[in-house]
């Protein structure tokens, strides 16, 4: 067994660290757009009985029971077939957005179901319309109870965004792979990369709990 040599990795640490930004960007974009889609899906599910509700449910069922990797592959190959040329970066963001929407819609749906039924009636008797009821009452209330689940899913998305490297995106894992293939120190660079992901995740945990505490203090 030959020894580990971290020197080649440390000389390229800055390049590797730049990948952290790309990772956060991918996960962040997919999370934000996924959440917007999910709000639509969840409201659809909550407000309707028939076809729309079933469609929204089926969307989540289909995308949560198949691999995200395959979904990104589908976007990666299908969009060009339809004549839309997008960068690998965008393909990954789109694929992850679609995937995130499915999971987030489930989280939102469950959160909205936990909103006390009487809130809907109170909103009615206060004269709020549907849009106002969702924007002012249901979503903000549900948002607080769902915050841990949403934050947790964002962490899962940070981990999942490592798949971007497979499509040639220069995220943290992608850059690690680059460094590995030029220096032949794959194990070393992957160990450092693993450490960076862990640090990033701990930092995010800290940020989320801080965010939560300030939110609670603000109101």
């Amino acid at each position, binding site marked *: 067994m030959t020894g580990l040599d971290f020197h080649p990795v440390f000389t390229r640490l800055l390049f590797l660290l730049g990948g952290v930004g790309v990772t956060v960007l991918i996960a962040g974009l997919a999370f934000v757009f996924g959440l917007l889609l999910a709000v639509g899906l969840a409201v659809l599910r909550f407000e309707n009985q028939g076809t729309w509700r079933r469609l929204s449910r089926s969307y989540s069922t289909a995308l949560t029971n198949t691999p995200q990797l395959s979904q990104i592959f589908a976007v990666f190959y299908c969009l060009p077939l339809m004549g839309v040329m997008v960068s690998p970066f965008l393909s990954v963001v789109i694929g992850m957005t679609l995937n995130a929407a499915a999971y987030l819609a489930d989280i939102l749906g469950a959160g909205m179901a936990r909103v006390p039924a*009487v809130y809907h009636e*109170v909103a*009615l008797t*206060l004269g*709020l319309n549907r849009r*106002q009821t969702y924007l002012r009452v249901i979503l903000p209330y549900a948002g607080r109870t769902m915050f841990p689940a949403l934050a947790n899913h964002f962490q899962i998305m940070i981990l999942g965004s490592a798949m971007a490297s497979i499509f040639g995106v220069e995220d943290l894992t992608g850059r690690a792979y680059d460094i590995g293939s030029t220096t032949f120190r794959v194990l070393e660079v992957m160990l450092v990369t693993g450490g960076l992901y862990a640090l990033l995740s701990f930092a995010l945990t800290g940020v989320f709990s801080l965010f939560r505490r300030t939110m609670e203090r603000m109101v």
Partner: protein
Amino acid sequence: MPYIDVRDVCVRHGKNETLRQAGFDAERGEIVSFIGPSGSGKTTFLRTLIGLQPVWRGQMGVDGRIVDMAAPASARILREQAAIVFQQYGLFGHMSVLRNLTLAPTVVAKRSRRDAEHEARALLERLGLANKADVLPADLSGGQKQRVAIARALMLRPTLLLLDEPTSALDPHKVRDVGVLLRDLAQDGMTIVQVSHAMNVVSSLSDRIVLLEDGQVRAVGKGRGCAAQLPDIAAFMNTHGGDAAADPAGLRPDPDH
């Protein structure tokens, strides 16, 4: 013509007839109490008055204006007049007390936030909650929650105030406070309909008592002291832990308070 005139309300849940031709009337500034055994339809009846409960049939006169309660548009008309305080209060947990009060005035009635907050603070002050404006509902006691719920309803400036079991979660001391408050509001001309199980409150507070049984109005008592006069109502009240002839003086403020 009475100020509120509800007639012939029928509600069905599947095959069950939850309300059968129920009705009552009330003058402006009167307090009406629905009493009756559990499952007799009190809550259901109250909810029809603000369009939360679809009715099979029924009409409601408010201030001489007749509303067909079965018509889809009726809910909007009813809600222009009325406000309701739910049994579980339904205070929005993610908003401060003040925001609970100003939400509807600002986003529905489009009043300015400053104006609404000014009114809300004055109202909280009147209900003895001046220092609770910026608190979250979770940090209030049961009695405080209820007064906030009443304040939120009052912000709608209703002419008809509905309350479902306003005293069920309160200790006797607070029960009397609520009674005093409702009396005050009624004196200002607000018509109040409440569902209540607290028979001493009912007998000391009500201008009218509506006894429901199995979805039907069994008896209606009118005027102060009516509880003792009608045998049906007196019998019900005596078997439900109340004294039909209770002294309305029970509402007088406690000397040592």
